Every structure is written in C-alpha cells, then in structure tokens.
C-alpha cells in the first residue's frame, strides 16, 4: 500500500484542483444563483414591521441588532422551519438519536454489557457520530442481479414515508405541526399502509432468498397487525368525534383516554411493537433464522437510511400513543385559572423598583412569543386553558411522555425472546382483533350511556 | 499431499494377530463371557473372540457375515446403538479394519458394556473409493446411528458400505480427489 500514487505529479494535482474550482464556480454561476433567485421569487416572504422581507433586507437585518429578534421570529413561524426543524424532521431525528443512545445505555445496564459504559469521553455520544460517519463512508454494494431502481428507491421511500408520518404529529398547542389535517388520524393510517409495500418491494428487488423470506414475513406481520391497530384507535375517535390529532389532544385536558380505554391502549402498544419490528416481534430481521431478513443485502448508507427511517417511525408511533392515549402536551395546570391579564399583558407590581410588570411567559420551544391565534381562540371560548397556565411548557410534557413510551417500547428487548411466525399471526388475528372490538364496544357503551363523548356529562 | 506410488509400506508395524503373547491372563469375567458366548455359539466358525476384558469385549467377524451377526446382536442382546465406528488401515495385511463399538441404553445391567464388533475388508493399493473391492455391508438397518460414522469411514478410508443410502462425503470437500486421508500411505506434509 502506497500512500501516494506512483504516478503522482504535483502539476497534475494542482491542475485537478483548479479544474474542480473552475467547474464549481461555473455551475454555481450558471445554475445555482438563478435557482436561488427563482426560488426566492416563488416563496411568499413574510412581512416584518410593515416591510416585506426581501433577500436584500434579510441580509441587512442580519447585522442589525434591533431587527434580529423579529427576523428569527418570522423564521420560526415559516413553513420551512416547521418541516426541517421543530415539529418536523430535526426534532424527530434528535429524539431518534436520543433513542439509540438510551437504548444502548439501558441495555448495557440490563445485560452486563461493558462496552457502552466505557465508550468515549462524553458518555459515548460521539459513538453515534462515529457510527453515522462509518455508514456514510462505507461502500454501497448492490447485488448483481438486483432490480436496481427499486433497490435504490426503497430506502429513500422508507425514510420519506417515515418523515411523512412524523409530519402529522402535533407536538405543541397552537398548531405546532407540519401538516395540520382535518383527517389527521386517517392520514396516519394511510401513511402506515405504505410501509408494507416498501418493505416487500425492497425485499423483492434484492433478488436474494433471505431478504425475500424476511419481506414476506414483514408483510404478514404488518398487514395482520394493521387491522387491530386501526380498530384500537376507533374507540377514541368515537368518543372525541374528531379525526384531527390536535383536537384529540385538546379533548384530553381533564383526563387522558387511557383511563377509559386501557384495552385499546394495550392493543395499540402491542401492535406498535409489531409494526416497528421490535424484539418480541422482530421476525423480519431474525438473525439466527434468516440472516438479517429484508435488510440483508443493504450496505452502507442505504442501511443507514433504513435505520434512520425505522427510528423516526419509532418516535412517530410513540408520539401517536402519547397523543391519543396519554394526553399529548397537556400537563398539570395552575388551578384556579390565572387572570387573563397576567398571561397576556402582565400585572403591574406596586412598590417595585424597576420593571413593574409581572407576566407569565411560556417556557418551552415556542419561546419568543405566544401564538397570536391562541389568544383569539381563548377569547372565543374554544380553549379551556392556555399554554401560559401550564406549570411547564407543553413541549416538555410531550417529550417526557414520548420518551417514557419509547422506553417501554425498548424494554422488551432485554426481557423477551423472539416469537414464531404462527404465534405472531395467532396473536394478531385471534386475540388483538377481538380485544379491539371489545374496546369499540366499551366506547359505544360510554357514548350511549351518556357518560362521555358528544353531549356526555363529562 | 500424498502420492499413490507403490512403495511398500514400512515394515515395522506388526499386525495385531501376529503377536498373541501367551502370558498369565487375568481371569475372564463371567458376565462379559456370557453374552459373547451367545454370539460364538450362534456363529461358531465365522466369529473369533479377540479379548474379553472387564466391560470391554471384542469379536472379530468375517466380512461376509457382519450383517448377520449384527442382526443377531440387535435381536438377541440388549445392545441397541453403535457408539463409534473406527476404521483402521493395515497396509501390512492389505486389509482395512472396521470396528463397531456397540452399547446399550435400555438394559441398566449392560450400561457399562461396550462390545466391539470388528471385521476386515480387503485393501487396494490404488484405491478408487466405491468402485473397488473395499466394500462392506452397511449396518445402518440394524444400528441406525452408524449412518454418519459410515459416511466418515467411507471418505477417510475408502470403505464403501453397500446398502447405505447416502454414501456422500461428509467432512472432506466434495471434490476431494486424493487418497483417503486416514490410510497410512497418505503422508502428512512435513512429517
């Protein structure tokens, strides 16, 4: 192994660098800048302080201290921020990375593993980065007789579908959700339905036996567990009378639905384990039977993408459990309710030197200001509480609950062995479907008894 | 690896039958003698008792009669399984010995006993496993557990077992084209 190629010549090396620089400059000038300008032309720009934000103004205000806060605020309320950062991809990816970290540490504690305890400097956080770098730098090997377009498309589609799932999850009051659909829950079902297709297509496209068996297993598992998954959530829909996920959360301001439908929650949790291929149900990846199942032929960043997608999916399912059964971002509130003035304008404090205003500001991620809609909605009597009345910001409650659910999803990995395919199908078709019907009948009974639901006493 | 040249094998190994030292032997154990006597009474000419020691006995059988003797043992004595099948090369005698070690699980009084059922088959200088005279009847129908052992003997010593359904190679590669490696004229490299 020689470090420098035997035909190395400095002149060729420099020429290569200059060539590259030349082509990059040319492409940026001819293609990059026009693209940016077209994009700026199409994107609706916000109005800040009565001025339409143009690209020129944005660059100017970046260095103007008084205008930076409004600029950032405008950025926070833009769609791009929602998709890329807070309720969308970035937030979910952060939680997914945390999940991997927690999984390693917890399993190390449980199983006497020594590696994760002594790994790295700062509790082994850099291990995640190292893993990611390793996956990126590895060669992507495609089987010789694979169906190449599908083989490439499947991981990308997997991540895309997982991200679409994440986009439907509201994480904070006031519409902090990427896609606030009226039929959010139905959209969730529609998105979940895509996973089996992607799995079976990628398994088929690898043109190998073990991925194919794994794909067929995944298909069996996902299809047979999708039905109890949908049925177990119908009880909540009957009680709330809405399919919008934010409204489902707001309906739980007094009590979470898990109190009334524990059966549905249990069924949903088990189906989530199966849909995520976590350990009692990880048959599609059973390494002692079928090498790695439908992931066998994946290598390098393709594998990394599938892993990223599956952890995004893990976050999304845990968040869905929190939203539907555990009350989402609702937490303990001040009781009796605070004065409206305290929340909105602040109350002057007598005999106090300095800033004489006492206000309740909102900790949490929508840090800078309260959503203007919220105040309006409260005036219209639609909201029982505002975020200002929460002890802690709703986002923190949401994250805490989600992490708790993720913990319970990870926990069986240390406790249970893998089950067999016929046992899995037996559980799915015989037990869980029956239990979810029981759950629906409980919900209907509550509705017709007039206890709860549309026009109920609670 | 090895060559199938026709150099005579080294002379220093004495054949086992050639050295029966007539010493004062220990008394023959009665229990072991009883079941060996069953066999010798049945096949008087075809079998020969090699030794009767405590818990260990050995009976040499002619190779044509091995299946009959094995069937008799299976039917009339508590020996119900074969523990081990050893193949030994005797280039001096131009013979290959096959020794079946039989044991018993069903009868607790026989649980210490190991009956060695031995036979010899002719050996050829240029072996062609499966197609030469080095053949023996398989005991698989009597003692099912010899199946893999006989496959191993076949590949290691070139003894073809007639009546064995699956005379493929087991441990060696499928394309092994050399001498059967446990024969004495297969030389270890560097030795």
């Amino acid at each position: 192994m020689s470090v420098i190629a035997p035909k190395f010549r400095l002149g060729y090396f420099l020429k290569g660098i200059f060539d590259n620089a030349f082509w990059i400059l040319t492409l940026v000038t001819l293609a990059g800048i026009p693209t940016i300008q077209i994009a700026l032309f199409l994107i609706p720009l916000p109005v800040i302080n009565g001025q339409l934000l143009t690209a020129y103004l944005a660059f100017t205000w970046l260095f103007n201290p008084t205008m930076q806060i409004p600029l950032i605020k405008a950025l926070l309320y833009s769609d791009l921020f929602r998709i890329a950062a807070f309720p969308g991809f970035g937030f979910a990816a952060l939680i997914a990375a945390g999940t991997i970290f927690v999984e390693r540490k917890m399993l190390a504690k449980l199983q006497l593993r020594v590696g994760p305890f002594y790994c790295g400097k700062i509790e082994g956080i850099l291990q995640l980065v190292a893993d990611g770098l390793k996956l990126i730098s590895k060669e992507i090997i495609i089987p010789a007789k694979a169906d190449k377009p599908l083989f490439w498309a499947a991981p990308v589609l997997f991540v895309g579908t997982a991200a679409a799932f994440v986009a439907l999850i509201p994480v904070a009051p006031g519409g902090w959700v990427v896609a606030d659909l009226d039929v959010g829950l139905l959209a969730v079902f529609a998105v979940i339905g895509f996973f089996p297709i992607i799995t079976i297509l990628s398994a088929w496209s690898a043109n190998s036996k073990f991925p194919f068996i794994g794909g067929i297993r995944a298909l069996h598992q996902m299809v047979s567990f999708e039905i109890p998954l949908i049925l177990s959530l119908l009880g909540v829909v009957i009680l709330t009378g809405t399919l919008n996920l934010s409204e489902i959360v707001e309906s739980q301001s007094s009590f979470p639905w898990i109190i009334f439908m524990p059966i549905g929650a249990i069924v949903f949790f088990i189906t989530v384990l199966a849909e995520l291929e976590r350990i009692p149900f990880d048959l599609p990846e059973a390494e002692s039977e079928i090498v790695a199942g439908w992931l066998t032929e994946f290598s390098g960043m393709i594998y990394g993408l599938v892993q990223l997608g599956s952890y995004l999916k893990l976050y999304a399912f845990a968040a869905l459990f929190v939203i539907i059964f555990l009350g989402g971002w609702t937490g303990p509130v001040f009781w009796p309710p605070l004065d409206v003035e305290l929340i909105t304008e602040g109350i002057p404090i007598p005999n106090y030197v300095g800033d004489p205003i006492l206000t309740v500001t909102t900790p949490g991620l929508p840090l800078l200001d309260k959503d203007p809609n919220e105040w309006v909605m409260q005036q219209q009597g639609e909201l029982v509480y505002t975020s200002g009345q929460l002890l802690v910001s709703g986002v923190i409650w949401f994250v805490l609950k989600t992490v708790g659910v993720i913990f319970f999803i990870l926990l069986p990995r240390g406790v249970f062995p893998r089950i067999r395919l016929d046992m899995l199908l037996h559980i799915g078709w015989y037990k869980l479907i029956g239990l979810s019907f029981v759950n629906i009948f409980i919900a209907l009974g509550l509705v017709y008894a007039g206890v709860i639901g549309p026009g109920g006493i609670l | 690896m090895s060559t199938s040249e026709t150099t005579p094998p080294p002379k220093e190994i004495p054949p086992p039958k050639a050295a029966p030292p007539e010493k004062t032997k220990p008394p023959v154990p009665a229990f072991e003698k009883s079941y060996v006597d069953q066999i010798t009474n049945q096949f008087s000419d075809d079998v020969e008792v090699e030794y009767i020691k405590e818990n260990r006995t050995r009976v040499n059988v002619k190779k044509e009669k091995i299946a009959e003797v094995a069937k008799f043992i299976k039917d009339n004595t508590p020996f119900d399984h074969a523990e081990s099948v050893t193949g030994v090369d005797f280039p001096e005698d131009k013979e290959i010995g096959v020794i079946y070690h039989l044991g018993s699980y069903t009868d607790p009084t026989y649980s210490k006993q190991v009956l060695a059922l031995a036979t010899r088959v002719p050996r050829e200088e240029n072996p062609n496993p499966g197609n030469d005279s080095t053949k023996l009847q398989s005991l698989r129908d009597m003692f099912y557990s010899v199946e893999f052992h006989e496959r191993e003997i076949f590949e290691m010593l070139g003894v073809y077992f007639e009546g064995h359904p699956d005379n493929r190679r087991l441990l060696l590669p499928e394309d092994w084209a050399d001498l059967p490696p446990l024969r004495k004229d297969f030389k270890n490299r560097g030795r």
Partner: protein
Amino acid sequence: MAEQVIPTKKMPPGLQVENVDDRIMTLNVGPQHPGSGHMRIIVKIDGDYIVDADPDPGYVHRGEEKMAESRNYITNIPHLERPVIHDSCNILYPYILGVEDLVGIEVPERAKYVRVIAAELNRCIYIQYWLAIYGIFLGHSTMFMWPTGDRELLIDLMEKITGARVTHAYFIPGGVRNDVPANFEDVCLRQVNYFEKRIKEYADIFYDNPILKARTEDTGVLSREDAIRLGTTGSVLRASGVDYDLRIKEPYDVYDELDVHTNVLKEGDSYARSKIPWLDMLESCNIIRQALEKMPKSGSIRKKLKPNPKGRNDEVYHRVESGRGSAGCHIISREKPEPYRLKLSVSSFRNLIALPYLLKGEKLGNMPAVYWSLNYWPVEADR
C-alpha cells in the same frame, strides 16, 4: 430406502436438486450465517415448513486423528483438546484415561479429585457458552450477555488452577500438570457458590419465560425410542427420558465416591433439551463442593512418568461424560511411542444424526431452537 450408487462426478450438494417442485426453496444456512456455527445446513423449505435438512459439517476439519498418529502420547495432549476449547478438560479426559491404561500408571488420589473439580468447572464453562448462544439464537440478547459474563468467574478460577484461560492442557497421564494454588479451596467454594446463585436467576428471565416456553415446548420432539435408535447421547438422550450418565453408569476416577445425581426429563422437546444442561450446571456445583470437601489436603499431584512412554500391544476404549455427552477415545496401540490409530468418538458427531431427523416437518422459525438444543459443537464434530 433405495440404494444409491455413488455419482461419478461429485456435485456440491446444494446443486443436486433435480425435478424439484417449484414450491420448494433451498436455503444454505451457513457457513456464513449467524445461525449456523461452523457448518452448513442445507434446508429445503416449503412455505414455512422444512421438508428436508442435510447437515454438511467439515468446514473446520483439522484431521486430529491423522495428526495423532505421528505424535507421541505426550505431544498429542495439546492438540487433542482443540476440538472443544471451552471443554478442554473433558475432551481430553478419555484420551488421558486410555493412555494411563496403556502405559499402566496409577494416579494419586489427590490428582483424581483435582481432575474431577477441573472437569466439572470446565463443564460449567462450556455450558455457559452454549447457553449464551442458545439465548441469542432465540433472540434473547440478555441471555447472551449474562452467561458470557458469569462464565468469566469460572474462567478466572481455571486460570488460577491451570495458568491458562481457555486451552488448559491440564490433564497428563499420571495426574495433572501442576498443583492447585494455596488458598484454592476457599476461593473455589466462594466462586462456585456465587456462580450457583447467579445461574439460579436464569430461571426468572429465561427458563420460566412464557414466550420461550410457548416457543420451544413441543418443538423438535425426540421420543425415547428414537433417541435410543439414533444413538444420541448426553443432554439430548437425558431430555428424552433415558437415564444414562457415564459419571454414574461407568464411574471413572473418583465419581463413584461422590454423590452424583443425574437430571432426566421426559418430554424430549427443545425446551427439555435446553433445560438439562442448566440443571447439569447446578449439579456440577454440588459435585465441586463435595469434591472440595473430600479432597486430600496434601499429597502427590502426579506420578512420575518415564519420558516418551510406549504403549503395549493392545487397544483400549474409554468414555467420559463431557459437557455435551459421552466422549469416547479408542486407541489402538503398538509398542511404539505414538498411537497406531486414535479415534475420537465425540458426542456432537453422534448427536448430529438427530438434526435432519428433527428438522423435517418443523417450521423454519424453529430451526435455531432445535439445532442448538442438540448441544452440538461444530468444531468437535469435525475434529
């Protein structure tokens, strides 16, 4: 079964499928497969059912028996323990007994007890390793980590006795290689007691686990008659209800002076086969404690052996109960320093015959459970 003539051209067995129905898929499980070990199982599946299984060992064949013919009785010791390095004392035991028989040497009483202790410790070490792999084969990663962790205790103990962590080469004709350290009794008792406490916890997480029971019970059932007919041995045999343990049936060294119990289960399924080794470990702890109590506190540890001993013109066949079952050693000796023929009759090779028999008709998901419950060690089968 019809007689099969040897084909003139050897085909790899995986390619021998002719005129097979399209429903049947052939899977090469191994040798590069996380669920096969150092061997290949050619599995034909119809849907989820295995219709045919053909084990193909030989990927780690070392030719130990051929090697033994050109080395003398002493230099044979280190390489004959290689087949099962985790169980090196027990795999060496029958050879040592046979050589002692051939050269006619008596073993001191203390050495016999040390041998029994080392053999039982080594049996626990092997079974822990086996159990770890059984756990990970069933997807139970905790059961992979716990036995590998607890195994270190006994490995440290064996290191104190023999000086080596895995390949001990501890038994020699006429005794053992070196004496145990000074405070060995206390250390060994403490370690073994803690070890027993630990392995009793395995029942909570593994053997009483409802999913494990539902998964492995009634799978791969080997009846008593079939276990005898197939000539299986060790834990496979005892899980099928045959009470046969060589430590009791044919006691060697000092096992007849100790109170040894054997564990027999009637079911013969994968669960019973996997439970027997665990019960054996608990029994081993008992044996070690008894041996420590009865062991002479001082005395010779080995008989002086004349250099390069020659055997007599005879053949011997000795058996011991190893971690997997009966391990036999058949030595044909001439009046020479090296054996004329040495045959290791090992339990893995004997139990392998049950694998195709058990796998036929099972589900594919049961394959690892059935395969590894046979207590099969591929390297030992290949020798």
